[in-house]
């Protein structure tokens, strides 16, 4: 795992600030969603990525706006980091007509095509081959667009993952496979699902670039992703990034699932000590950022979230007459 390595120090103050802002926004938005779930105002299943913000933000910071991002059931962070609209996400979670999927999808089905998000879905590993397809389309069109697939360690148990790596490597496709290894797949810890803790080795096996990083260090994630993306744009083929991180909440909703896994309580405490947000904040403070600016950022994010929740609350529910709309489109959307 690369710690505070040489290349990381080159990350500019400006970029680090923007990463901090992005991570904070995701954290605060998800904490709010957690409370809305607890109060039953939100009923759609919400899988929170609290504790994993550095992966989404580090990777998306290395992408251009026309690059695409493919996610799964735990994708609020990916959506926001790639530029998805917060109001539209909140409204989607509330099941409102103004939601990014018109209230049809809920938390597990987010989309923002203009920002490069063409759909996230909860079937584990389902979007990994779709990302490969997006990269294939870019290659065939002769454009240097990159596709990033976000998935968990659980998804690497699926055949989709292995088949996709091979297909992408064979065709040198510009796809960044980002494994957010948070140690769990629902109730099962990594050790209960594979004999070896070796996800990143799949890269070597299939002949693509592989890199393991500390997923709680946004600089490290950014540096590794930026390096891989640069290589890809130059025709260097796909890469697998294994980001070690931890989800503070349980599989679904804000509860912590402390009953899951013998060591979950102790692990959680240890990982909270490695809070990715506190780490950037400290780094920025050591570079001279004032406390007042930091407080301002918290306030700004909170206000933005207040607005989004209010927007969601006051938006209309989809009309029943809308039920059969969009089963098919009249013509291609993009």
């Amino acid at each position, binding site marked *: 795992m690369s710690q505070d390595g040489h290349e990381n120090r080159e990350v500019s103050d400006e970029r680090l600030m923007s990463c901090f802002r992005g991570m904070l926004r995701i954290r605060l938005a998800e904490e709010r969603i957690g409370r809305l779930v607890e109060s039953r105002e939100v*009923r*759609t*299943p919400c899988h929170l990525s609290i504790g994993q913000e550095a992966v989404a933000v580090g990777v998306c910071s290395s992408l251009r706006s026309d690059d695409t991002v493919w996610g799964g059931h735990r994708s609020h962070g990916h959506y926001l980091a790639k530029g998805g609209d917060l109001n539209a996400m909140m409204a989607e979670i509330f*099941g*409102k*007509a103004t939601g990014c999927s018109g*209230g*049809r*999808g*809920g938390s*597990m*089905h987010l989309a923002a095509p203009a920002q490069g998000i063409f759909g996230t*879905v*909860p*079937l*584990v*590993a389902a979007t990994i081959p779709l990302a490969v397809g997006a990269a294939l389309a870019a290659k065939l069109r002769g454009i240097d667009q990159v596709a990033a697939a976000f998935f968990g360690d*659980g*998804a690497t*148990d*699926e*055949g*989709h993952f292995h088949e996709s790596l091979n297909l992408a490597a064979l065709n040198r496709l510009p796809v960044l496979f980002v494994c957010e290894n948070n140690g769990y*797949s*629902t*109730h*099962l810890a990594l050790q*209960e*699902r*594979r004999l070896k803790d070796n996800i990143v080795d799949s890269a070597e096996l299939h002949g693509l670039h592989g890199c393991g990083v500390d997923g709680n260090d946004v600089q490290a994630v950014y540096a590794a992703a930026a390096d891989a993306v640069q290589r890809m744009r130059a025709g260097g083929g796909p890469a697998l990034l294994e980001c070690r991180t931890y989800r503070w909440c349980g*599989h679904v909703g804000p509860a912590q699932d402390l009953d899951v896994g013998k060591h979950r309580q102790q692990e959680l405490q240890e990982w909270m000590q490695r809070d990715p947000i506190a780490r950037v904040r400290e780094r920025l403070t050591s570079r001279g950022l004032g406390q007042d600016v930091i407080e301002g950022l918290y306030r700004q994010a909170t206000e933005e979230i207040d607005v989004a929740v209010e927007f969601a609350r006051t938006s209309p*529910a*989809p*009309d*029943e007459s*809308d*039920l*059969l709309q969009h*089963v098919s489109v009249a013509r291609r959307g993009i």
Partner: protein
Amino acid sequence: MRALTYAQAIREAHAQLMAEDPRVFLIGQGVRNPWYAGTSLQDLDKEFGCDRVIDSPVAENATTGAAVGAAIMGMRPIVFHPRMDFMLLAMDPIVNQAANWSYLFAGRVSVPLVIRAVINRGGEQGAQHSQALQALFAHVPGLKVVMPATPYDAKGLLVAAVNDGNPVLYIDDRWLYEKQGDVPDSLYGVPLGKAAVRRSGRHVTVVATSCMVHEALQAADTLATRGIEAEVIDLRTIKPWDRDVVFSSIGKTGRMVVADAAWMSGGVAADIAATVAGELFHALTAPIIRVCLPDAPAPTATSLEQAYYVNANDIVVAVEKTMR
């Protein structure tokens, strides 16, 4: 007899089958965790050990394929898919392999396999966590498909499925888990392919599957207050379905409504309607009506979910239409 819930009845069937026959084992996601299976598999791992109650990685294809292989070798696996949607990743071992095997090898090799799939409709979970895909599987020769509606059948059909010697898809519905009913404590089977008349009536036959049986019974209560006597048939086995019971009921009533909480086009209800229309046309005094889901994926928003899922009221409306 004691009253058990539907989920407890499923659990009891597993426990008794495993106690009785060392060839029976359980494999799938969440078989050791109540998150997915509710109480329907509770503590089976403690009773029978983790070697026979295998909580698998997210690997539906390999898990199901392995169960097919073990079944070919004479074991009696039950593969568990906590949402039917996830099972689509295992289409090859189910459709191409398990269903074909006996025919391919002239009955010299068979696949005594039970695949248990859970329907998990509603709850704002969206299109990929709520699909009722019985028609997809009923289409395939070599697969039997059962859908218990009561605790009694939940146990008896699982026992019969395990003992059938062929690949059987056992589809249960989370909406039914808390339903109570009498369940004998013996290890009994409910024969595959046999429907049950849950209520007799002379005006109209309502053929229903799984949770729609309960909606149909409720509808029949309402209809009775309006002077309409509905006969409610619980299909129990979707493939092969019980023509005798359905046909003799139509012979009596001359009218049919088919209620299946899955999509209408190309569905189970379509098959039943076409068969009845083709073979009992002269007995019919009214057009057949299907009560099914509209042909759209499941929406999440509550307002849309309410419009999407069919219920007793839709059956009442359909029956009244046939009575006109």
